[in-house]
């Protein structure tokens, strides 16, 4: 199934203050990493609209990376927590749509972590290479991950409603 010559195309959303600067630092340090992630600069990871992720996948991206400041260190104080919340809901939504949730990844990288960001990108590219190109299936409702996602919604609702003794 996985073709080792397949070169994934991945869109990366990086926040201006930490992760974009981390990518800059990786460049200044001449660290070589996979060229498959194409970075779009936003002011904050909190700006990432779920629509951006869906649009990227719809336009042919095989994966999406969201990178921001470490929790507690957001330049805008707490906006990366909002990005994190959206990310979790988005993964669930992607699974419900029949997409492998692993195609979306959230990574924290401070401005000093050029090496770490490069390594995270290398790992993401390899993981997406194994998943193969994104081919949104015609019978997406029948995909196992879709079934699982739909069932888990019901289950999580049930658990949330339970009143513990």
């Amino acid at each position, binding site marked *: 199934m996985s073709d080792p010559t397949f070169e994934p195309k991945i869109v990366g959303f990086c926040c201006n203050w930490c992760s974009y600067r981390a990518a800059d630092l990786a460049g200044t340090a001449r660290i070589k990493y996979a060229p498959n992630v194409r970075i779009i600069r936003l002011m904050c990871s*909190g700006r990432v609209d779920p629509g951006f992720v869906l649009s990227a996948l719809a336009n042919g991206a095989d994966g999406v990376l969201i990178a921001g400041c470490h929790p507690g260190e957001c330049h805008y104080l707490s906006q990366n927590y*909002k990005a994190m919340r959206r990310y979790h809901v988005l993964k669930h939504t992607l699974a419900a749509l029949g997409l492998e949730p692993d195609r979306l990844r959230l990574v924290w990288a401070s401005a000093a972590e050029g090496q770490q960001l490069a390594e995270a990108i290398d790992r993401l590219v390899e993981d997406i290479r194994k998943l193969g190109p994104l081919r949104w299936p015609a019978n*997406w409702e029948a995909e196992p991950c879709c079934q699982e996602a739909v069932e888990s919604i019901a289950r999580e609702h049930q658990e949330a409603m339970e009143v513990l003794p």
Partner: protein
Amino acid sequence: MARKIGIYVCHCGSNIAGTIDVEEVARWAGATIDGVAVARDYKFMCSSLGQQMIEEDIRKKGLTGVVVAACSPHLHEKTFRRACEHAELNPYLCQMVNLREHCSWVCADKAAGTAKAKALVYAAAERVKQQVPLEPMEVQVNPATLVVGGGIAGLQATLELADAGYHVYLVEREPSIGGHMAQFDKTFPTLDCSACILTPKMSEAGQHANVTLLTYSELEEVSGSVGNFKVKVRKKARYVDETICTGCGICIEKCPRRVVDNGFEAGLGQRKAIYTPFPQAVPRIPVIDTAACIWFDRGKCRACEKLCPTNAIAFDQEDEIVELQVGNIVLATGWKLFDCHKLPQYGYGRLPNVYTNMEFERLCNAAGPTNGKIVLRDGKTEPKSVAVIHCVGSRDVRHNESCSAVCCMAALKFGHLVLEKTKAEVYSFYIDMRTYHKGYEEFFQRLLKEGMHFVRGKVAEVTDAARTPGEEGKLIVQVEDTLVGQQQRIAVDMVVLMGALEPQADAKELGLKCGISCSMQGWYTERHPKLDPVATMTDGVFVAGACQGPKDIPASVVQGAAAAARISGMIAKGHVMIEPIVASIQEDKCSGCKICNTMCPYNAIEFDEPAGVSRVISSMCKGCGTCVAACPAGAISGAHFNNAQIMAEIRGILWDAVPSGNGQAPGVPAAALNP
């Protein structure tokens, strides 16, 4: 309007051209991308010739947008925006592509690098077609400044601003300004008496017409933005009326309650329940420690009140919240000492004659608990040998990875003081000897001549378990002398631990109040570690001194002065320009759900009850865009990072990708998503 985009691909010498076929990228851009009027490549776009090229094209060809594919925008965004402005094109119609840090420098393969470069250029071209002219906003700068922290860095900043004619509010947590420098005996390498060089600055700050001293006070709350901050300061109750108190000190003399002074005297000396931290305190107004005071404890005494000649004692005093308006804030909150109990193998807290560096400073200080005599804990025995252990809690992956910058010099200073005041032998146990500034190496050479002994090795343990009769009653330092390659047991009477400098316990909390963050180790994050060490990512908030990272007194003074100079410049200009990257709400689309109100950490969104819509206060909006992404109605747009621009960038960046669906099922059309 017809789009006429100019694309400029920079070689950056061989930095970009070495791994990316820049001529090909320029040629391809001109041939492939819609709306491109001109596409050029050039050796150095940031040079004056490169900029002129852009300006000429704008004028001659009537360009409506410019894409410069070169280095990171963090380097030259301003440069190219200025070039556009010169040619009368709005600077926000310019977009940079990061072909160097994000492409040529990180990619080994020319083909892959060139393909990535093309995608990034296409993205920028599509984005710039959606960009609209924007005007920076002008904000007036309040000439008053808040300085938090009355140590040497804060004092320097305060005095420079005050001397320049601007008002400063100096907030200090302790009852007196002065900071750690007031606790030291002598300062290296000059061996100046620390208090003698510090107190003139303290007294100037205390008397300066342009300085309002708020001691025994803490910063509670900050709101607003550069040029226009509103701050709340909590003046803690001293239980002494500062308008009446003359600082005569009778209350302190007559107070019957004595406690161990864990603050200024580092636990070595005592003070009364009503006290000033040290004799040269500024202001000289005492404070009642409610935890120690007999009145607060069990309702008796009040001797101070009875004996005060001016009736200045006020047991009913309460904390007061002072509201101030300032244009800028300087955080100069300094450091705290590493808790040496955390290295139990050195015996601190268990073996009596093991001291921390701060305790030893108090020991040496003539105004300290032993009147400057270097004696053991029994208060009378002079040590015959002293061991000074470097890097206690520093350069240690279990505690603080960083070097504390000052301890090697302080250790040498202690060695000198021991040799000067006693007949003892003194040993330094070091990993490296870091004597890096002016006069420091010479000071080290001086100590070598004075007869201080140096052993290169990280001490394994300090113990009182004697193995030979000669070790009885002594502290034994067990260490490997790495230059000789042998284990040593060196018996001494006194051990001084050079404890690490650590961030204050509440540094992070205070930083967040002001909108700045800390590094992983807890020091405040500067805007650029090499080129901008006093500014932070938040305009109007500066850091100075050890709170930004361990440093010596000269460096702290320099940073305090640097912060003052930056602020003086802003005040002299009278205004600052704010980037117009702000959010705005389209009222006809707003349903009044208020989800955005809770999203904003700066409280920049207010809800208009009668109108039933939310509004963004532009001057407070920092432009993060979180509300833009959160609005369920798509009613909020973020200037210069709006949905149209980002979606265009996404489409461009995937110009060479196959849209999903692949003929099997329709992909989600971009038009169906939020515009």
